[in-house]
Protein backbone atom coordinates (compact mmCIF):
# COMPACT_ATOMS: atom_id res chain seq x y z
CA UNK A 1 0.00 0.00 0.00
CA UNK A 2 2.19 2.72 -1.31
CA UNK A 3 -0.54 5.14 -2.27
CA UNK A 4 -1.93 7.25 0.57
CA UNK A 5 -4.51 9.09 -1.50
CA UNK A 6 -6.25 7.55 -4.50
CA UNK A 7 -8.85 9.45 -6.48
CA UNK A 8 -10.55 7.56 -9.29
CA UNK A 9 -12.98 8.93 -11.88
CA UNK A 10 -14.34 11.56 -9.53
CA UNK A 11 -17.02 13.91 -10.77
CA UNK A 12 -18.50 16.65 -8.66
CA UNK A 13 -20.76 19.64 -9.20
CA UNK A 14 -22.51 22.34 -7.23
CA UNK A 15 -26.11 21.98 -8.41
CA UNK A 16 -26.11 21.73 -12.18
CA UNK A 17 -22.66 23.32 -12.55
CA UNK A 18 -19.97 20.63 -12.95
CA UNK A 19 -16.71 21.45 -11.18
CA UNK A 20 -14.74 18.23 -11.53
CA UNK A 21 -15.12 15.90 -14.49
CA UNK A 22 -13.55 12.47 -14.15
CA UNK A 23 -10.45 13.21 -12.08
CA UNK A 24 -7.81 10.52 -11.48
CA UNK A 25 -5.06 11.33 -9.03
CA UNK A 26 -2.73 9.50 -6.66
CA UNK A 27 -0.39 10.70 -3.95
CA UNK A 28 2.24 8.23 -2.79
CA UNK A 29 3.51 8.20 0.76
CA UNK A 30 6.36 10.61 1.36
CA UNK A 31 5.69 12.64 -1.76
CA UNK A 32 4.92 16.31 -2.23
CA UNK A 33 2.23 16.39 -4.90
CA UNK A 34 1.11 19.66 -6.45
CA UNK A 35 -2.26 20.34 -7.99
CA UNK A 36 -2.02 23.36 -10.24
CA UNK A 37 -4.45 25.25 -12.35
CA UNK A 38 -5.91 28.68 -12.79
CA UNK A 39 -8.20 30.17 -10.17
CA UNK A 40 -11.63 28.60 -9.99
CA UNK A 41 -10.74 25.37 -11.80
CA UNK A 42 -11.77 23.09 -8.93
CA UNK A 43 -8.48 22.68 -7.05
CA UNK A 44 -9.83 23.57 -3.63
CA UNK A 45 -12.88 21.39 -4.29
CA UNK A 46 -10.51 18.48 -4.69
CA UNK A 47 -9.02 19.11 -1.23
CA UNK A 48 -12.49 19.32 0.26
CA UNK A 49 -13.28 15.93 -1.28
CA UNK A 50 -10.16 14.37 0.23
CA UNK A 51 -11.02 15.88 3.64
CA UNK A 52 -14.57 14.56 3.37
CA UNK A 53 -16.19 18.00 3.64
CA UNK A 54 -18.11 17.22 0.46
CA UNK A 55 -18.97 13.98 -1.28
CA UNK A 56 -18.31 13.18 -4.95
CA UNK A 57 -21.27 12.69 -7.31
CA UNK A 58 -19.53 9.60 -8.64
CA UNK A 59 -16.15 7.92 -8.42
CA UNK A 60 -14.03 7.04 -5.43
CA UNK A 61 -11.81 8.97 -3.02
CA UNK A 62 -9.68 6.71 -0.85
CA UNK A 63 -7.37 7.89 1.90
CA UNK A 64 -5.17 5.27 3.60
CA UNK A 65 -7.34 2.57 2.06
CA UNK A 66 -10.61 4.01 3.41
CA UNK A 67 -13.37 5.23 1.11
CA UNK A 68 -13.92 8.76 2.47
CA UNK A 69 -17.52 9.20 1.29
CA UNK A 70 -18.63 5.98 3.02
CA UNK A 71 -17.38 6.98 6.48
CA UNK A 72 -19.87 8.11 9.12
CA UNK A 73 -19.18 11.26 11.14
CA UNK A 74 -17.16 9.40 13.79
CA UNK A 75 -15.11 7.56 11.18
CA UNK A 76 -14.52 10.79 9.30
CA UNK A 77 -13.40 12.62 12.44
CA UNK A 78 -11.08 9.73 13.26
CA UNK A 79 -9.53 9.96 9.80
CA UNK A 80 -9.24 13.75 10.01
CA UNK A 81 -7.13 13.44 13.15
CA UNK A 82 -4.52 11.95 10.85
CA UNK A 83 -4.86 14.80 8.36
CA UNK A 84 -3.64 18.35 8.61
CA UNK A 85 -4.86 21.20 6.49
CA UNK A 86 -3.35 24.58 5.84
CA UNK A 87 -6.03 27.01 4.74
CA UNK A 88 -5.48 29.76 2.23
CA UNK A 89 -5.08 32.58 4.72
CA UNK A 90 -4.10 30.41 7.65
CA UNK A 91 -7.54 30.35 9.30
CA UNK A 92 -5.93 30.83 12.71
CA UNK A 93 -8.36 31.17 15.59
CA UNK A 94 -8.29 34.91 16.13
CA UNK A 95 -9.38 34.74 19.78
CA UNK A 96 -6.41 32.58 20.78
CA UNK A 97 -2.68 33.25 20.96
CA UNK A 98 -0.25 31.51 18.61
CA UNK A 99 0.54 29.06 21.41
CA UNK A 100 -3.11 28.20 22.05
CA UNK A 101 -3.77 27.83 18.33
CA UNK A 102 -1.16 25.09 18.09
CA UNK A 103 -2.15 23.54 21.41
CA UNK A 104 -5.82 23.48 20.29
CA UNK A 105 -5.87 20.00 18.78
CA UNK A 106 -3.62 18.55 21.48
CA UNK A 107 -6.03 19.82 24.13
CA UNK A 108 -9.13 18.71 22.22
CA UNK A 109 -8.00 15.23 21.27
CA UNK A 110 -5.50 14.12 23.88
CA UNK A 111 -5.32 13.94 27.65
CA UNK A 112 -1.71 15.07 27.74
CA UNK A 113 -0.59 17.08 30.78
CA UNK A 114 -0.14 20.80 30.18
CA UNK A 115 3.68 20.67 30.59
CA UNK A 116 3.95 18.12 27.82
CA UNK A 117 1.63 20.13 25.59
CA UNK A 118 3.85 23.14 26.20
CA UNK A 119 6.95 21.25 25.08
CA UNK A 120 5.20 19.82 22.00
CA UNK A 121 3.89 23.24 20.97
CA UNK A 122 7.31 24.84 21.35
CA UNK A 123 8.83 22.04 19.26
CA UNK A 124 6.32 22.63 16.45
CA UNK A 125 6.90 26.37 16.63
CA UNK A 126 10.65 25.83 16.59
CA UNK A 127 10.29 23.75 13.43
CA UNK A 128 8.74 26.73 11.64
CA UNK A 129 11.12 29.21 13.28
CA UNK A 130 8.55 31.02 15.39
CA UNK A 131 9.23 29.79 18.92
CA UNK A 132 9.72 33.39 19.96
CA UNK A 133 6.27 34.38 18.70
CA UNK A 134 4.33 31.95 20.89
CA UNK A 135 2.73 34.70 22.97
CA UNK A 136 1.57 36.84 20.02
CA UNK A 137 -2.03 37.06 18.85
CA UNK A 138 -2.80 36.20 15.19
CA UNK A 139 -3.58 39.86 14.47
CA UNK A 140 0.02 40.76 15.36
CA UNK A 141 1.52 38.40 12.77
CA UNK A 142 2.55 39.18 9.20
CA UNK A 143 1.00 37.12 6.40
CA UNK A 144 4.06 34.90 6.10
CA UNK A 145 4.27 34.33 9.85
CA UNK A 146 0.56 33.48 10.04
CA UNK A 147 1.06 30.91 7.28
CA UNK A 148 3.95 29.36 9.21
CA UNK A 149 1.94 29.23 12.43
CA UNK A 150 -0.89 27.57 10.51
CA UNK A 151 1.64 25.10 9.15
CA UNK A 152 2.84 24.31 12.68
CA UNK A 153 -0.78 23.89 13.74
CA UNK A 154 -1.53 21.49 10.89
CA UNK A 155 1.30 19.16 11.99
CA UNK A 156 0.42 19.38 15.69
CA UNK A 157 -0.98 15.85 15.87
CA UNK A 158 1.73 14.35 13.64
CA UNK A 159 -0.59 13.65 10.71
CA UNK A 160 0.13 11.29 7.84
CA UNK A 161 -1.25 13.69 5.25
CA UNK A 162 -1.11 17.47 5.07
CA UNK A 163 -3.08 19.46 2.51
CA UNK A 164 -2.13 23.01 1.64
CA UNK A 165 -4.63 25.34 0.02
CA UNK A 166 -2.69 28.05 -1.81
CA UNK A 167 0.16 28.20 0.73
CA UNK A 168 2.02 30.80 -1.35
CA UNK A 169 -0.82 33.24 -2.04
CA UNK A 170 0.01 36.82 -1.13
CA UNK A 171 3.49 36.19 0.31
CA UNK A 172 6.62 38.26 -0.25
CA UNK A 173 9.54 36.49 -2.01
CA UNK A 174 11.38 35.71 1.23
CA UNK A 175 8.32 34.22 2.97
CA UNK A 176 7.56 32.38 -0.26
CA UNK A 177 10.91 30.60 -0.16
CA UNK A 178 10.61 29.94 3.58
CA UNK A 179 7.17 28.36 3.31
CA UNK A 180 8.18 26.33 0.25
CA UNK A 181 11.28 24.96 2.00
CA UNK A 182 9.29 24.20 5.13
CA UNK A 183 6.77 22.13 3.18
CA UNK A 184 9.56 20.08 1.65
CA UNK A 185 11.57 19.72 4.85
CA UNK A 186 8.63 18.80 7.07
CA UNK A 187 7.44 16.25 4.52
CA UNK A 188 10.84 14.59 4.51
CA UNK A 189 11.64 14.74 8.22
CA UNK A 190 8.20 13.82 9.55
CA UNK A 191 7.49 11.25 6.84
CA UNK A 192 4.34 13.08 5.74
CA UNK A 193 2.57 13.09 2.45
CA UNK A 194 1.80 16.59 1.18
CA UNK A 195 -0.74 17.75 -1.34
CA UNK A 196 -0.21 21.35 -2.37
CA UNK A 197 -2.90 23.20 -4.27
CA UNK A 198 -1.36 26.25 -5.85
CA UNK A 199 -1.04 28.43 -8.89
CA UNK A 200 2.47 29.53 -8.02
CA UNK A 201 4.36 27.52 -10.62
CA UNK A 202 7.94 28.62 -10.08
CA UNK A 203 7.93 28.20 -6.31
CA UNK A 204 6.15 24.88 -6.26
CA UNK A 205 8.09 23.26 -9.12
CA UNK A 206 11.18 23.67 -6.90
CA UNK A 207 9.81 21.47 -4.14
CA UNK A 208 7.35 18.96 -5.62
CA UNK A 209 7.79 15.35 -6.69
CA UNK A 210 4.77 15.14 -8.96
CA UNK A 211 2.43 17.67 -10.54
CA UNK A 212 -1.13 17.53 -11.81
CA UNK A 213 -2.42 20.35 -14.01
CA UNK A 214 -6.15 20.90 -13.84
CA UNK A 215 -8.10 22.98 -16.29
CA UNK A 216 -11.86 23.40 -16.29
CA UNK A 217 -12.35 20.45 -13.94
CA UNK A 218 -10.27 17.89 -15.82
CA UNK A 219 -6.63 16.83 -15.56
CA UNK A 220 -4.81 18.39 -18.48
CA UNK A 221 -1.33 17.07 -17.80
CA UNK A 222 0.70 15.28 -15.14
CA UNK A 223 4.30 14.39 -14.48
CA UNK A 224 7.41 15.27 -12.52
CA UNK A 225 8.57 18.85 -12.19
CA UNK A 226 11.22 18.34 -14.88
CA UNK A 227 8.71 16.84 -17.31
CA UNK A 228 6.40 19.79 -16.77
CA UNK A 229 9.13 22.35 -17.39
CA UNK A 230 9.99 20.63 -20.64
CA UNK A 231 6.40 19.97 -21.64
CA UNK A 232 5.28 21.02 -25.08
CA UNK A 233 1.59 20.90 -24.26
CA UNK A 234 0.13 24.34 -25.01
CA UNK A 235 -1.75 24.61 -21.69
CA UNK A 236 1.23 23.59 -19.56
CA UNK A 237 3.51 25.86 -21.57
CA UNK A 238 1.20 28.82 -21.10
CA UNK A 239 0.91 28.11 -17.38
CA UNK A 240 4.56 27.42 -16.61
CA UNK A 241 5.72 30.47 -18.53
CA UNK A 242 2.87 32.69 -17.43
CA UNK A 243 1.74 33.76 -20.89
CA UNK A 244 -1.38 35.95 -20.82
CA UNK A 245 -3.12 34.35 -23.79
CA UNK A 246 -3.23 30.79 -25.07
CA UNK A 247 -5.51 27.83 -24.44
CA UNK A 248 -6.69 29.74 -21.36
CA UNK A 249 -8.03 32.89 -23.03
CA UNK A 250 -7.44 36.38 -21.69
CA UNK A 251 -11.02 37.42 -22.40
CA UNK A 252 -14.02 36.14 -20.53
CA UNK A 253 -16.53 34.87 -23.12
CA UNK A 254 -18.51 37.84 -24.42
CA UNK A 255 -20.34 39.18 -27.46
CA UNK A 256 -18.10 40.54 -30.24
CA UNK A 257 -16.38 43.74 -29.09
CA UNK A 258 -17.64 45.86 -31.99
CA UNK A 259 -21.18 44.73 -31.35
CA UNK A 260 -20.92 45.59 -27.65
CA UNK A 261 -19.71 49.09 -28.47
CA UNK A 262 -22.58 49.44 -31.02
CA UNK A 263 -20.14 50.14 -33.83
CA UNK A 264 -22.15 47.90 -36.18
CA UNK A 265 -25.68 48.61 -37.08
Amino acid sequence: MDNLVEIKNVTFGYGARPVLKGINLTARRGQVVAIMGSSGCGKTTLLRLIGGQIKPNSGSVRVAGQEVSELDTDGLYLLRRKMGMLFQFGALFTDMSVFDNIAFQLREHTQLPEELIRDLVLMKLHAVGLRGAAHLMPSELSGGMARRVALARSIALEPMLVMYDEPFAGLDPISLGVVGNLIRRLTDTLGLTSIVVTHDVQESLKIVDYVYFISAGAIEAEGTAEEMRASGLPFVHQFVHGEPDGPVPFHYPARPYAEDLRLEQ
Partner: protein
Amino acid sequence: MIKPLQAIARLGHHALASMSRIGLATRFFLATLLRSGVAFRRFNLTIRETYFAGVLSLIIILVSGLFVGMVLGLQGYETLQTYGSESALGVLVALSLVRELGPVVAALLFASRAGSAITAEIGLMKATEQLAAMEMMAVDPIARVVAPRFWAGVISMPLLAALFSAMGIFGGYLVGVVLIGVDEGSFWSQMQAQVDFQEDILNGVIKSVVFGVAVTAIALFEGYDAPPTAEGVSRATTRTVVTSSLAILALDFVLTAFMFRGVG
Protein backbone atom coordinates in the same frame (compact mmCIF):
# COMPACT_ATOMS: atom_id res chain seq x y z
CA MET B 1 -49.99 36.75 -19.41
CA ILE B 2 -46.40 36.19 -18.39
CA LYS B 3 -46.21 38.94 -15.76
CA PRO B 4 -48.77 37.55 -13.31
CA LEU B 5 -47.29 34.09 -13.75
CA GLN B 6 -43.86 35.45 -13.00
CA ALA B 7 -45.19 37.20 -9.92
CA ILE B 8 -46.70 33.94 -8.68
CA ALA B 9 -43.46 32.10 -9.42
CA ARG B 10 -41.51 34.73 -7.49
CA LEU B 11 -43.92 34.49 -4.58
CA GLY B 12 -43.55 30.72 -4.59
CA HIS B 13 -39.81 31.03 -4.72
CA HIS B 14 -39.74 33.36 -1.73
CA ALA B 15 -42.12 31.10 0.20
CA LEU B 16 -39.98 28.04 -0.50
CA ALA B 17 -36.80 29.89 0.39
CA SER B 18 -38.16 31.09 3.73
CA MET B 19 -39.60 27.65 4.53
CA SER B 20 -36.25 26.01 3.88
CA ARG B 21 -34.55 28.64 6.05
CA ILE B 22 -36.95 27.91 8.88
CA GLY B 23 -36.18 24.22 8.43
CA LEU B 24 -32.46 24.91 8.49
CA ALA B 25 -32.80 27.05 11.61
CA THR B 26 -34.79 24.33 13.38
CA ARG B 27 -32.23 21.68 12.51
CA PHE B 28 -29.45 23.98 13.67
CA PHE B 29 -31.24 24.62 16.96
CA LEU B 30 -31.83 20.90 17.57
CA ALA B 31 -28.23 20.08 16.67
CA THR B 32 -27.08 22.71 19.18
CA LEU B 33 -29.21 21.16 21.92
CA LEU B 34 -28.11 17.60 21.07
CA ARG B 35 -24.43 18.47 20.99
CA SER B 36 -24.40 20.52 24.18
CA GLY B 37 -22.44 17.89 26.10
CA VAL B 38 -19.14 19.72 25.72
CA ALA B 39 -20.66 22.99 26.94
CA PHE B 40 -21.43 21.34 30.28
CA ARG B 41 -18.56 18.86 30.56
CA ARG B 42 -16.07 21.64 29.94
CA PHE B 43 -18.04 24.33 31.68
CA ASN B 44 -15.14 26.79 31.55
CA LEU B 45 -15.93 27.23 27.83
CA THR B 46 -19.45 28.34 28.75
CA ILE B 47 -18.19 30.54 31.57
CA ARG B 48 -15.84 32.31 29.17
CA GLU B 49 -18.73 33.05 26.79
CA THR B 50 -20.91 34.13 29.71
CA TYR B 51 -18.29 36.74 30.42
CA PHE B 52 -18.44 38.07 26.85
CA ALA B 53 -22.22 37.94 26.49
CA GLY B 54 -23.28 38.69 30.05
CA VAL B 55 -20.65 40.53 32.05
CA LEU B 56 -19.74 42.86 29.20
CA SER B 57 -23.43 43.73 28.76
CA LEU B 58 -23.69 44.79 32.41
CA ILE B 59 -22.97 48.50 31.91
CA ILE B 60 -25.67 49.08 29.30
CA ILE B 61 -28.17 46.96 31.24
CA LEU B 62 -27.54 48.68 34.59
CA VAL B 63 -27.55 52.23 33.23
CA SER B 64 -30.67 51.62 31.11
CA GLY B 65 -32.41 49.98 34.07
CA LEU B 66 -31.68 52.97 36.25
CA PHE B 67 -33.07 55.45 33.73
CA VAL B 68 -36.15 53.37 32.93
CA GLY B 69 -36.86 53.13 36.67
CA MET B 70 -36.41 56.87 37.13
CA VAL B 71 -38.82 57.63 34.27
CA LEU B 72 -41.31 55.17 35.75
CA GLY B 73 -41.00 57.01 39.06
CA LEU B 74 -41.77 60.36 37.48
CA GLN B 75 -44.59 59.21 35.23
CA GLY B 76 -46.08 56.95 37.89
CA TYR B 77 -46.09 59.67 40.51
CA GLU B 78 -47.78 62.13 38.19
CA THR B 79 -50.62 59.72 37.43
CA LEU B 80 -50.98 58.27 40.93
CA GLN B 81 -51.09 61.62 42.73
CA THR B 82 -54.22 62.54 40.71
CA TYR B 83 -55.98 59.78 42.62
CA GLY B 84 -54.15 60.49 45.85
CA SER B 85 -52.49 57.12 45.83
CA GLU B 86 -48.86 58.07 45.38
CA SER B 87 -47.98 55.66 48.18
CA ALA B 88 -48.57 52.87 45.60
CA LEU B 89 -45.64 54.19 43.53
CA GLY B 90 -43.37 51.36 44.71
CA VAL B 91 -45.86 48.72 43.57
CA LEU B 92 -46.31 50.37 40.19
CA VAL B 93 -42.57 50.61 39.54
CA ALA B 94 -41.82 47.09 40.77
CA LEU B 95 -44.67 45.37 38.94
CA SER B 96 -43.99 47.17 35.65
CA LEU B 97 -40.37 46.15 35.87
CA VAL B 98 -40.49 42.52 37.00
CA ARG B 99 -43.46 41.59 34.83
CA GLU B 100 -42.74 43.43 31.60
CA LEU B 101 -40.07 46.05 31.26
CA GLY B 102 -37.29 44.07 32.96
CA PRO B 103 -37.41 40.99 30.76
CA VAL B 104 -38.43 42.80 27.56
CA VAL B 105 -36.14 45.83 27.59
CA ALA B 106 -33.21 43.83 28.95
CA ALA B 107 -33.73 41.29 26.14
CA LEU B 108 -33.91 44.05 23.51
CA LEU B 109 -30.68 45.53 24.84
CA PHE B 110 -29.11 42.07 25.03
CA ALA B 111 -30.05 41.43 21.39
CA SER B 112 -28.39 44.60 20.21
CA ARG B 113 -25.35 44.38 22.49
CA ALA B 114 -24.56 40.65 22.70
CA GLY B 115 -26.67 39.13 19.91
CA SER B 116 -25.11 41.29 17.21
CA ALA B 117 -21.63 40.55 18.58
CA ILE B 118 -22.28 36.81 18.52
CA THR B 119 -23.53 36.94 14.91
CA ALA B 120 -20.58 39.03 13.76
CA GLU B 121 -18.09 36.79 15.54
CA ILE B 122 -19.49 33.51 14.20
CA GLY B 123 -19.99 35.01 10.72
CA LEU B 124 -16.39 36.22 10.61
CA MET B 125 -15.12 32.89 11.93
CA LYS B 126 -16.93 31.30 9.03
CA ALA B 127 -15.71 33.86 6.49
CA THR B 128 -12.09 33.40 7.58
CA GLU B 129 -12.47 29.60 7.39
CA GLN B 130 -11.92 29.16 11.14
CA LEU B 131 -15.00 26.94 11.39
CA ALA B 132 -13.90 24.87 8.38
CA ALA B 133 -10.43 24.57 9.92
CA MET B 134 -11.99 23.35 13.16
CA GLU B 135 -13.98 20.74 11.26
CA MET B 136 -10.85 19.58 9.47
CA MET B 137 -9.22 19.19 12.89
CA ALA B 138 -12.00 16.76 13.79
CA VAL B 139 -13.54 19.23 16.25
CA ASP B 140 -17.26 19.83 15.83
CA PRO B 141 -17.82 23.62 15.66
CA ILE B 142 -21.43 23.27 16.82
CA ALA B 143 -20.29 21.54 20.00
CA ARG B 144 -17.15 23.63 20.55
CA VAL B 145 -18.19 27.12 19.37
CA VAL B 146 -21.98 27.29 19.10
CA ALA B 147 -23.26 25.35 22.12
CA PRO B 148 -21.18 27.16 24.79
CA ARG B 149 -22.34 30.52 23.40
CA PHE B 150 -25.94 29.32 23.39
CA TRP B 151 -25.91 28.26 27.02
CA ALA B 152 -24.00 31.37 27.99
CA GLY B 153 -26.82 33.46 26.50
CA VAL B 154 -29.50 31.39 28.20
CA ILE B 155 -27.77 31.74 31.57
CA SER B 156 -26.99 35.45 31.19
CA MET B 157 -30.41 36.66 30.09
CA PRO B 158 -32.45 36.06 33.31
CA LEU B 159 -29.59 37.39 35.44
CA LEU B 160 -29.37 40.54 33.34
CA ALA B 161 -33.15 40.98 33.44
CA ALA B 162 -33.09 40.62 37.24
CA LEU B 163 -30.33 43.21 37.54
CA PHE B 164 -32.23 45.50 35.17
CA SER B 165 -35.33 45.28 37.37
CA ALA B 166 -33.35 45.77 40.58
CA MET B 167 -31.63 48.81 39.13
CA GLY B 168 -34.99 50.12 37.87
CA ILE B 169 -36.59 49.79 41.29
CA PHE B 170 -33.63 51.68 42.75
CA GLY B 171 -34.16 54.39 40.09
CA GLY B 172 -37.85 54.59 41.00
CA TYR B 173 -36.88 54.88 44.66
CA LEU B 174 -34.41 57.68 43.90
CA VAL B 175 -36.98 59.74 42.03
CA GLY B 176 -40.06 58.85 44.10
CA VAL B 177 -38.70 58.82 47.63
CA VAL B 178 -35.47 60.80 47.59
CA LEU B 179 -36.40 63.45 45.03
CA ILE B 180 -40.18 63.87 45.29
CA GLY B 181 -40.61 62.76 48.85
CA VAL B 182 -43.08 59.87 48.69
CA ASP B 183 -43.24 58.11 52.04
CA GLU B 184 -40.41 55.59 52.16
CA GLY B 185 -42.24 53.14 54.40
CA SER B 186 -45.28 52.83 52.19
CA PHE B 187 -43.07 52.70 49.06
CA TRP B 188 -41.33 49.55 50.24
CA SER B 189 -44.08 47.91 52.34
CA GLN B 190 -46.72 48.17 49.62
CA MET B 191 -44.24 46.75 47.15
CA GLN B 192 -43.52 43.86 49.49
CA ALA B 193 -47.20 43.16 50.05
CA GLN B 194 -48.34 43.38 46.44
CA VAL B 195 -45.56 41.74 44.44
CA ASP B 196 -46.20 38.00 44.35
CA PHE B 197 -43.21 35.72 44.04
CA GLN B 198 -44.77 33.19 41.71
CA GLU B 199 -47.22 35.32 39.75
CA ASP B 200 -44.89 38.23 39.18
CA ILE B 201 -41.25 37.41 39.75
CA LEU B 202 -41.22 33.80 38.57
CA ASN B 203 -43.25 34.64 35.46
CA GLY B 204 -40.78 37.41 34.69
CA VAL B 205 -37.90 34.96 35.02
CA ILE B 206 -39.66 32.47 32.71
CA LYS B 207 -40.06 35.24 30.15
CA SER B 208 -36.43 36.23 30.28
CA VAL B 209 -35.28 32.62 29.91
CA VAL B 210 -37.47 32.23 26.81
CA PHE B 211 -36.12 35.51 25.40
CA GLY B 212 -32.59 34.36 26.14
CA VAL B 213 -33.14 31.15 24.18
CA ALA B 214 -34.73 33.05 21.27
CA VAL B 215 -32.15 35.85 21.01
CA THR B 216 -29.11 33.60 21.34
CA ALA B 217 -30.46 30.96 18.95
CA ILE B 218 -31.28 33.60 16.33
CA ALA B 219 -27.90 35.29 16.72
CA LEU B 220 -26.01 32.00 16.42
CA PHE B 221 -28.00 30.80 13.42
CA GLU B 222 -27.65 34.09 11.57
CA GLY B 223 -23.89 34.01 12.10
CA TYR B 224 -23.55 30.37 11.12
CA ASP B 225 -25.73 30.86 8.03
CA ALA B 226 -24.18 34.18 6.94
CA PRO B 227 -22.66 34.33 3.45
CA PRO B 228 -18.89 34.39 4.03
CA THR B 229 -18.38 37.96 2.82
CA ALA B 230 -18.20 41.38 4.48
CA GLU B 231 -21.63 42.25 3.13
CA GLY B 232 -23.06 38.90 4.20
CA VAL B 233 -21.86 39.30 7.78
CA SER B 234 -23.13 42.89 8.02
CA ARG B 235 -26.55 41.86 6.75
CA ALA B 236 -26.69 38.92 9.12
CA THR B 237 -25.85 41.20 12.05
CA THR B 238 -28.66 43.57 11.13
CA ARG B 239 -31.06 40.64 10.70
CA THR B 240 -30.15 39.34 14.15
CA VAL B 241 -31.16 42.61 15.82
CA VAL B 242 -34.35 43.01 13.76
CA THR B 243 -35.51 39.39 13.97
CA SER B 244 -34.74 38.93 17.63
CA SER B 245 -36.39 42.24 18.60
CA LEU B 246 -39.56 41.20 16.79
CA ALA B 247 -39.34 37.72 18.29
CA ILE B 248 -39.02 39.18 21.80
CA LEU B 249 -42.10 41.38 21.39
CA ALA B 250 -44.19 38.64 19.80
CA LEU B 251 -43.15 36.05 22.38
CA ASP B 252 -43.87 38.55 25.12
CA PHE B 253 -47.46 38.83 23.96
CA VAL B 254 -47.86 35.05 23.74
CA LEU B 255 -46.33 34.48 27.17
CA THR B 256 -48.33 37.29 28.77
CA ALA B 257 -51.50 35.78 27.31
CA PHE B 258 -50.64 32.44 28.91
CA MET B 259 -49.89 34.09 32.24
CA PHE B 260 -52.97 36.31 32.16
CA ARG B 261 -55.16 35.67 35.18
CA GLY B 262 -58.46 36.34 33.47
CA VAL B 263 -60.89 39.25 33.59
CA GLY B 264 -62.43 40.17 36.92
